[in-house]
């Protein structure tokens, strides 16, 4: 009975989704001609290079036009990490130290991850440093760095992460983000105003004013947060089954 109701509901939802997307043709030009800006997207495409000096329009939107939103987004990630820690908090007994559930992995996996680890970290750092020039950015690079740490956490049973260092990296990155934003207020502009660092030439590493700096800070913050989440989730002990 319940199945039938649910399937009927899904059919209704699906019908209206399909029906509404009849009117939105795939691949239609909804941006309008370059001369008349019909949408916000067209405005961004026409003005980003001139106003922010950044080649990657999406980075400009994320960090500059919607920079305040990104600050909130990073805060949500921070809250998720904190919430995870507080939900899964377990008081440790005397003399008990943290230990993961994973078994000792094979020699092949251990050696392979040891060789790959620095390169994965390097790739992640490359992605978030070049966030304003190439596809990618702080969030993607941070995720890649966290993947490198996941590799090590899986391969080595006794791989220890410095929780203090993670907290420090995360806090410093957050402080950098907020203080760069506040600097715009101090110099008489708006929050996250992109005017006090020269914009440089387009498509060079030092371009875009504060945008690369903020994205690098976001990258460090996301990397620290995701690594923290992985570490918390991996250090849960299986509960003893009560019969």
């Amino acid at each position: 009975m319940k199945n039938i109701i649910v399937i009927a509901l899904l059919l209704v939802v699906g019908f209206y989704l399909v029906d509404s997307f009849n009117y939105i043709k795939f691949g239609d030009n909804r941006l309008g001609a370059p001369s008349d800006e019909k949408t916000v997207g067209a405005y961004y495409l026409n003005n980003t290079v001139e106003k922010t000096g950044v080649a990657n329009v999406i980075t400009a939107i994320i960090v500059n036009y919607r920079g305040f939103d990104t600050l909130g987004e990073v805060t949500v990630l921070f809250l998720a990490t904190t919430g995870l820690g507080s939900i899964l908090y377990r008081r440790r007994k005397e003399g008990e130290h943290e230990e993961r559930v994973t078994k000792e992995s094979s020699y092949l996996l251990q050696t392979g991850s040891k060789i790959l680890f620095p390169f994965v970290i390097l790739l992640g750092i490359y992605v978030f440093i070049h966030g304003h020039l190439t596809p990618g950015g702080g969030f993607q690079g941070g995720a890649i760095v966290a993947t490198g740490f996941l590799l090590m956490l899986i391969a080595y049973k006794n791989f220890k992460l410095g929780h203090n260092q993670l907290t420090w990296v995360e806090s410093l990155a957050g402080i950098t983000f907020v203080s760069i934003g506040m600097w715009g207020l101090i110099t008489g502009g708006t929050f996250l105003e992109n005017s006090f660092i020269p914009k440089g030439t387009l498509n060079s590493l030092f371009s875009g004013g504060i945008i690369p700096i903020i994205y690098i800070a976001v990258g460090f913050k996301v990397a620290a947060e995701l690594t923290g989440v992985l570490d918390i989730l991996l250090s849960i002990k299986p509960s003893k089954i009560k019969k």
Partner: protein
Amino acid sequence: MDFGQYQNIVTISVYGSAIALILIGLYAVLIKKNLIKIVIGLSLADAGIHLLFVAIGYLKGGTAPIFSPSVVGENVTMVDPVPQALVLTAIVIGFAVTAVALSLVIRLYKHHNTARIDQIKSLKW
């Protein structure tokens, strides 16, 4: 890229797969009893919505909205950057939701020794 005579097929397959993902996710959330499967359903619906967003932003022959040296000064069309930026935000929020939901599932599992909601009796009143 011009799809030519395949325009309809491309439209149906892109929108269709996105809507199918959303519906499969909703189905899992509504029908499945295992909490892990419910979380997977949430993630699936998330993925479908992201695909739908990016598909709406696409326009025919558009390149990625990046003014790299090879496209500066050339007459290129670029896809709408706004949905892509929104999806980037949505992915991060989706990750946070999944992580917190999984931790709640772990907590429930430890308390009740089961991850099936129909066996967790104390939730009923």
